[in-house]
């Protein structure tokens, strides 16, 4: 039976169910157990925003607090994966990837290829991303395009509690390294999630709203902003099809192209910075493979090419909002040669 739980609870439930199902699944990261073994309250944190809270009691010895050294524990997780475990490591903020990037892009991502398919690296790296929490330039970035660029990594960014659970279970069962992006502004979002375990296959975008006038391709938190805009636009007589990518690598090209062939109009909404991003990649895809169907120039709604500002006012302007999305949709809908 499905009941309503939060995005945070859905991730916790996916971890718990996979740890229950498979003894080789372990969880590790900064404060994941939350001060286990030290004086004071056990299980006080469960990660910086409480996602892994409670797992330490259910699975003694399989939830590991690590030193504040990403290069050490991400490397340890990847090594453990090559040696038979299925570690889920929490890289607190994706902004900290710089200190452990070699382990990810030049080691984990390459093993299957370099060892002729004889080595697998079933590691999941969970990480927080996104602006909106007043956390400024070093704790708010959307760095999924960096990982999407690297062959050998799978990159996932769920938008709902249902998707968060199903995609994380798939990530844990997958034999390749998976970067799992959790938007920190979505943790309290509530939605229906089955109690049973289920896996959502990678590379299958979700058409979250059907419409024949304009295609909006988006992911993560921007799915909700796009749906809000689409609701408003329907009142103005413009029907949007909203596609939630779910995974950026693999990318579900077919669902994007099928929709663009139908509508002839494309808006890509992406919270990341615009250069070399999903937004530019998807617009290139549509321009190359659906050129004959396009009836208007492609519009991109993204953050500007700046760091995330510390000023609240500027941060609010930085994040694409439903109004900007609505304006972009109107631009392509009303465009005439």
């Amino acid at each position, binding site marked *: *039976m499905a009941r309503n739980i939060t995005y945070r609870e859905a991730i916790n439930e996916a971890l718990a169910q996979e740890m229950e199902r498979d003894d080789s699944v372990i969880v590790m990261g900064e404060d994941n157990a939350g001060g286990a073994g030290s004086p004071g309250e056990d299980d006080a944190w469960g990660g910086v925003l409480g996602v892994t809270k409670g797992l330490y009691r259910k699975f003694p010895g399989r939830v590991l607090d690590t030193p504040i050294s990403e290069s050490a524990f991400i490397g340890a997780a990847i090594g453990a994966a090559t040696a038979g475990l299925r570690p889920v490591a929490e890289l607190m903020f994706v902004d900290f990837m710089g200190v452990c990037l070699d382990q990810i892009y030049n080691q984990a991502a390459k093993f299957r290829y370099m060892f002729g398919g004889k080595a697998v690296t079933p590691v999941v790296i969970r990480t927080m991303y996104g602006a909106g929490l007043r956390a400024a330039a070093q704790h708010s970035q959307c760095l999924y395009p960096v990982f999407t660029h690297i062959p050998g990594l799978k990159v996932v960014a769920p938008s709902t509690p*249902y998707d968060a659970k*199903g995609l994380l279970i798939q990530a844990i069962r997958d034999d390749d390294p998976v970067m799992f992006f959790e938007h920190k502004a979505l943790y309290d979002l509530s939605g229906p999630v*089955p109690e*049973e*375990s*289920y*896996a*959502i*296959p990678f590379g*299958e975008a979700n*058409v979250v709203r*059907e419409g024949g006038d304009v295609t909006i391709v988006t992911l993560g938190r921007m799915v909700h902003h796009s749906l809000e805009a689409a609701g408003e636009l329907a009142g103005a007589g413009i029907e949007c099809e909203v596609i939630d990518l779910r995974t950026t690598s693999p990318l579900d090209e*077919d*669902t994007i192209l*099928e929709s663009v062939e139908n509508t002839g109009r494309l808006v890509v909404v992406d919270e990341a910075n615009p250069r070399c991003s999903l937004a530019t990649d998807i617009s290139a895809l549509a321009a190359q493979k659906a050129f004959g169907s396009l009836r208007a120039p492609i519009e991109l709604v993204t953050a500007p090419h700046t760091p995330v500002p510390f000023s609240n006012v500027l941060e609010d302007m930085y994040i694409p909002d439903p109004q900007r999305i609505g304006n972009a949709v109107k631009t392509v809908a009303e465009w005439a040669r």
Partner: protein
Amino acid sequence: MTDDRIAAITMPKWGLSMQLGKITSWVVAEGDEVSVGDDVADIETDKIAGTLEAGSAGTVRRLVARVGEDVPVSGTIALLASADVGDDELDAAVLQARAVIEAGAVPDEGGAPVLESAQAGGRKIDYAGVGSDGEVVLLIHGYGGDRNSWLFVQQPLAERHRVYALDLPGHGTSGKDVGDGSLEVLAEAAACVLDAIGAERAHLVGHSLGGTVAVAVAARDPGRIGSLTLIAPAGFGAEINADYLRGFAGAQTRRELRPLVGLLFADDSLVTRQVVDDLLAYKRLDGVEAALEALLGALLDGDRQRIDASSQLRGLGDAIPVTVIWGSADKIIPVGQAESVPAASKQVIEGAGHMPHMEKPSEVLAAVEAALRGG
């Protein structure tokens, strides 16, 4: 309605979670005559889109609900009355009904199906019951379906009967283990639900594979069964759309699944995004793929049906009245197989595919009611 010369057409309750519905378009206009079963309006909920059929006959005098507005379940959407009812009286009734819609009050859930669980051979079997009086009716869905496939008929039947719909093993929210996938495992589950309800006697309504299950349940204990209503049942001929069955079992994506689900209906516009998403969500559950594969092995022998329900039903003699219902445009099991069913009553429903209880529910309802009276 205070005036019994005025009859209300109300927002139906399609499924456990439905609280509000929206009229997307009216099929009738003020002044039209409607008969029972005529299409009245297209309605959508956050889960499903369907066409509401008239439950009583008369002249449509007022359309109360507006297209696109949310109407609570059982709220009045239109008024039927004969010509001798004055405009003043109708306007008063409209005001009263508008007040309910504008208040947006969701009715109490006293009449909603109640979900319970039974145990069958170590498997958890979920079933939902509604209705407090009358005979026990058990609704048994088909391959890949669940108890919600009865959403258009369970509630109306419950006005006069105690109506239960179960999730067979491997389906819905029931346990996903189906053992060897044999008919016996499924029949055992249905019989255990009858035990859990405490039903000494029950009428069985089975669709497709569920029809075969109904026959098997009757064969176990014929004295317990009041009547059998079989809707496009499996097991009465060799031919079946094996490509559909294998395709459904194997489909992983929306693009693969959607055209297959379209084959279930005469009019595939009934297959909304939500219908396909719900099926995908079911298929992604752990254990479902294996369950569907195991059941496929029991259903199919190559491209032909493996199950023979015909001889089992003949073995029951005349003890149990049998009704068979089939959609004229069935693309899964050919309607011609209705001829092979030893049934006293046979009805072919024009304009329905493999799911007449979803496409033409009022005709199915009438047939089931007739079967219950006969049994």
